[in-house]
């Protein structure tokens, strides 16, 4: 029933900078399933956003995918029975195929709705831009025996406007007929993020990458955007890769959660298991550092001790061992833990669950 849409296998992304090599991602492997929300959580700088950008083949310079593959299971919308597997890492970052994937098959929304819209164009123009690039209208060009020969054509200007109004309505923007001619500075932050969502969804992508989509918004707007995304997902059967460092949000949104630390995934499980039965000490520490309502006064909020290590000198063995409360000397600083299924469909990489 659950079919993979994106399969990431042993992905490594390195940044060659003057002071050495920063290993931003070292061996991430996970799947994103069709029609399902996958949450990715972790501290700042743990490689969440880079993973997302790697899927779009948009790793910023001087970063490079040095190893691994990202398999994209492509299905033509007209012919959903057949599946092609495309290795995104092999595509030319400026080529036509990846440009078709970007926006057309995988949409993306960003952290900063304030600056994600080009200030000089109206919302309608910006939605239309994406539509003109990606949304193809099937057109019957003729019959051959029984089968109709289908072809795609681009949307026209009038259709684009119509779809734009419809999308703005879908994302719950009041008065879409007027808003389509508004410029970004005439919209509030929440409205702009809705427009971003509308742009990303207007081309009916197979997957939506939401890179901290609500960080810059206040909580009431955040709730609206999250509701909106869930609602649309149900309607459109779209996969969502939800990147955040907000554990509350991910608990609400995701079915599957991947915890990342220093460019590696350390734990993967269903949302329930991560929150009620976390295995990896890092995940446990993260969960403990959430403030709870009703906690006793004057008690300090738990934090993870120590600092994130310098990316140039990663600790030996398990990268988390200098900060780990369950550090086992002689083991954790020597042996690199492997990715193991600890429980049924609950994966972690920690020596606590390995026989060494």
């Amino acid at each position, binding site marked *: 029933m659950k079919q993979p849409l994106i399969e990431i296998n042993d992905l490594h992304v390195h940044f060659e900078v003057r002071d050495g090599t920063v290993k931003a991602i070292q061996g991430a492997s996970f799947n994103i399933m069709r029609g399902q929300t996958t949450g990715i959580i972790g501290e700042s700088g743990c490689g969440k956003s880079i993973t997302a950008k790697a899927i*779009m083949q*948009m790793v910023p310079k001087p970063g490079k995918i040095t190893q691994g593959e990202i398999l994209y299971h492509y299905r033509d919308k007209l012919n959903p029975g057949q599946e092609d597997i495309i290795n995104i890492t092999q595509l030319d970052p*400026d080529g036509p195929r990846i*440009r*078709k*994937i*970007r*926006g*057309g098959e995988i*949409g*993306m929304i*960003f*952290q*900063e709705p304030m*600056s*994600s*819209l*080009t*200030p*000089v*164009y*109206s919302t309608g123009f910006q939605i239309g*831009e*994406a539509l003109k*690039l*990606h949304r193809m209208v099937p057109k019957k060009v003729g019959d051959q025996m029984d089968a109709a020969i289908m072809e795609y054509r681009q949307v026209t200007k009038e259709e684009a406007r119509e779809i734009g109004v419809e999308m703005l309505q879908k994302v719950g923007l*009041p*008065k879409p*007929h*007027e808003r389509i*001619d*508004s*410029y970004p500075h*005439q919209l*509030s932050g*929440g*409205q702009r993020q809705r427009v*971003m969502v509308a*742009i*990303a969804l207007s*081309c009916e992508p197979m997957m939506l990458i939401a890179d901290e989509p609500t960080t810059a918004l206040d909580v*009431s707007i955040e709730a*609206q955007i999250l509701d909106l995304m869930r609602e649309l997902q149900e309607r459109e059967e779209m996969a969502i890769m939800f990147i955040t460092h907000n554990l509350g949000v991910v608990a609400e949104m995701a079915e599957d959660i991947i915890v990342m630390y220093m460019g590696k995934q350390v734990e993967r499980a269903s949302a329930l298991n991560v929150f009620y039965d976390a295995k990896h000490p890092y995940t446990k520490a993260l969960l403990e550092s959430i403030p709870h309502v009703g906690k006793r006064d004057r008690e300090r909020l738990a934090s993870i001790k120590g600092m994130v290590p310098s990316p140039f000198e990663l600790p030996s063995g398990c990268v988390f061992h200098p900060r780990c409360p369950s550090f086992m000397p002689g083991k954790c600083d020597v042996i690199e833990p492997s990715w193991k299924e600890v429980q049924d469909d609950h994966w972690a990489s920690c020596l606590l669950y390995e026989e060494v």
Partner: protein
Amino acid sequence: MIKPRFDESNVQPDAPEPVEPSGSKKEEQLSQAYLSLVWWKFKKNRLAIVGAVIIFLFYTVCGLFPEFFSPYLLNYQSDYLEARPQPIVFKNREGNFSLRPAVYGLEQELDLVARKRTWVPDEERIYPISLFVRGQPYKLLGIIPTDIHFFGINTEKYPTGTIFLFGTDRVGRDLLSRILYGGRLSLLLGLIGQALTLVLGLVLGAISGYYGGTTDILVQRLTEFVGAFPDIPLFMALAAAIPIGWSPIIVYFMLTMILVFIRWGGLARQVRGLVLSLREREYVLAALSSGASDRRIMFRHLIPGTLSHVIVIATLMIPGMILSETALSWLGLGLRPPLTSWGVLLQEVSSVRVIRFAPWQLITVPFIIFAVLGFNMLGDGLRDALDPYGGR
């Protein structure tokens, strides 16, 4: 603001505006806000308005309709060689005061000290000036044949009447007419040249700023190389390289191209700087993530963001273009007769003889000064106005 649901029902029923303003009207108000703010700020700046009016007058009078506004044609040679300017007087034919302006006739006089013949006003003969008189035939805008001139002497009534408000040159051509015609070439060169500079500067600046790296280094070194070129020797070489047999129009466009070639660098640098800061904005990433090509990002998303800045720089660069043409033509490296531009007119007064005996021919200089000042005032006004949220 829980939900930005702002709809008509929230509007006060007793508000002064109609309760339900039509959608399109309200829309217009919203999207016109920036432009009306710019216009409001521009209007408040008197100098800018003066500059705009000067530039507008120059381009309509000299650029579009010099044939109409000048009393004579460009190369009409009268018998009055080096005639002094004929002053405008308010007298009628009998010599009494009249509101209708008139000019004196010209009379030949032998100057024994300078040993030459000169033309001096003869106060006995008075010719009233008429508006929209029939004169020499020409084609308006090169299409409509007509012979109506804005002002002049009615030659049917007064066949001996002349009107040389700024005097004539050595071969008897009316100087005012020549200045108006000359302005056409000089001012259009400024405009066309600046437009080409703008295109070249925008494209190369955007490419340089957007791609960065090797491309950036190459473009930047190119602008430095071009900028470091000593202009005058380069012009001498290029002027010598233009074959003598070329038609004046081709020479004119060559000169424009050469000026553009020398001057695009500064604009390209400015655009590059702006693009460097704009390309880090999230909307570029957003455009990239929705599959836009590099070209589209550069021309659709980055360059429009630089335009308000670029328009100002471009306006302020036009006088430089006009002055370059003037200087080069004066040196004999730019336009040459039979083309007439302000530089060519100045070249004709570059001898001591002319300055000694026909100093009125220097009247071209204030025209150039006014055009340059007009552009500077307009550009300064635009700079202040296009940043309506800025201080001041």
